[in-house]
């Protein structure tokens, strides 16, 4: 059963149609990749799903529920976590606090709860240790290197413990030695039933992880199919992979 469905989703900016009647779906428990040339509309698609921008048309359904134009926090609370391609760390907060934000209840009771509970702390440290940045736990996040920020972005979404994780270029700028381990981890998490939708330009990563691939170009969805099929599709070669 499809966990997430985009149905004719459209987003326009003046004359530019960033996403043009895009329709695709993500199966529950799968790792689906969203690829396409620069400016294809991938990030915009993420933005519409996560509620960061409003769509101009179409429907987005998650677990059978219409989540079109829901506020971002509500989407998150429904179980969809996302990362940003251009990282958005909470600069004046430490790495640890960046992660702890995931545990804030949306009510007055948040005034009563202390800052970081023991279990949250343990969870955060576990994630950080895995990504090899546990030493940075008390560093202000604006002081991180590019790659470290990418890792923090990933750590933050893992903290939310979502049912579905949207990753926007998780591999960009990450050292290959570490990337190896991250991919293993994604696979491990996926094995526990968590669904992934990943935007990525690194084809090695895409091919290694994906069960299904969605290809976008000029705002439109060209094809959605298995890696084998996509890899050999003419249009995809043309539009995206080029000679490589």
């Amino acid at each position: 059963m499809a966990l997430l469905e985009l149905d004719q989703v459209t987003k326009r900016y003046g004359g530019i149609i960033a996403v043009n009647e895009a329709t695709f779906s993500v199966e529950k428990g799968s790792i689906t990749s969203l690829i396409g040339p620069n400016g294809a509309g991938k990030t915009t698609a993420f933005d519409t799903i996560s509620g960061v921008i409003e769509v101009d048309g179409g429907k987005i359904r998650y677990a059978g529920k219409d989540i079109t134009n829901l506020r971002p926090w509500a989407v998150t609370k429904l179980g969809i976590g996302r990362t940003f391609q251009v990282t958005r760390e909470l600069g004046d907060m430490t790495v640890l606090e960046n992660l702890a934000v995931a545990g804030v209840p949306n009510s007055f009771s948040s005034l009563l709860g202390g800052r970081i509970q023991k279990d949250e702390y343990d969870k955060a440290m576990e994630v950080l240790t895995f990504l090899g940045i546990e030493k940075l736990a008390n560093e202000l996040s604006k002081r991180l290197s590019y790659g470290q920020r990418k890792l923090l972005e990933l750590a933050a979404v893992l903290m939310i413990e979502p049912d579905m994780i949207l990753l926007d270029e998780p591999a960009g700028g990450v050292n290959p030695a570490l990337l190896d381990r991250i991919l293993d981890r994604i696979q491990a998490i996926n094995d526990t039933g968590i669904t992934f939708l990943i935007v990525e330009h690194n084809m090695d990563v895409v091919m290694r992880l994906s069960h299904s691939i969605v290809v976008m170009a000029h705002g439109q969805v060209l094809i959605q199919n298995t890696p084998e099929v996509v890899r050999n599709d003419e249009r995809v070669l043309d539009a995206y992979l080029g000679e490589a």
Partner: protein
Amino acid sequence: MTNFVQVVILGLLLGGVYALMASGLTLIFGVMRVVNLAHAAFIIVGAYFGYYLYEGLGIDPLISMVLALPVFFLFGVALYRILFPRIEGSERFGEMTVLLTFGLAFFFEGLMSFFFTGIFRTASTGYSTDAFFIGDIFIPKGQLFAVTASAILLIGLWAFLKYSRIGYGVRATMQNRDAAQLVGVNVRSVSTISFGIGMALAGAAGTLVSFLFAFFPSRHWQWLAILLALIVVGGMGSIKGAVIAALGLAVLSSLVTDQISPEWAPMSFYGVLFLMLMIRPQGLFGKKVRI
């Protein structure tokens, strides 16, 4: 009908002067992200400049305005060099400058009170109470001259920013300091220059104030409030926006003064500001940034 036209004309003339005052403020904001709370205080300094040159040496304020440009430019440059380098690259630059310029406003108000006393002043030039009459409609000369002078300055400023190389540097710096440095802009000198320009505009506007309004040192807070409203309505950092907001709101305020009551005239500034926030938070010409 004549009265309506008359009131609109008066509003436009008042707005022209506001436009000059507000554009210096919005320029400094645009380039340096500094909300210069001392801007109006510097306008008052400029007003004293115009006043004393007129009273002491008999120099017409319109000529003082031209003199004020280099004088206040240098003043601004000196001030910038003394104060800003210490906090320039700081992470909290924006909020620090609010406090810094607030302190400056107090400092200069104090100095002015000390040197010029708190007594109200106004330069009585021949034209400051004179008017051209076209049929039943009158056009006050002082305001007309002031607006013409403002317009010339603003066009000059606009052309400078639009076409000169430094103008490009100024715009680049205001959008992305690091990137500007990396394409070869000397941001320190560009910031200094634009602060100087903002100051020159304040000084020039001040000389106009010297014969248009009665002023004294602590008057600046009231001016500041109006100018701040104008630059938000116009879209912060947009000179075009500031000018249009100044003209539009001044006309509105004149109409309110005439038709309803002067008591509600300030509402045209602050009320419109509120409306603007509700329908278009970024202001008339402010750009909505990609989230």
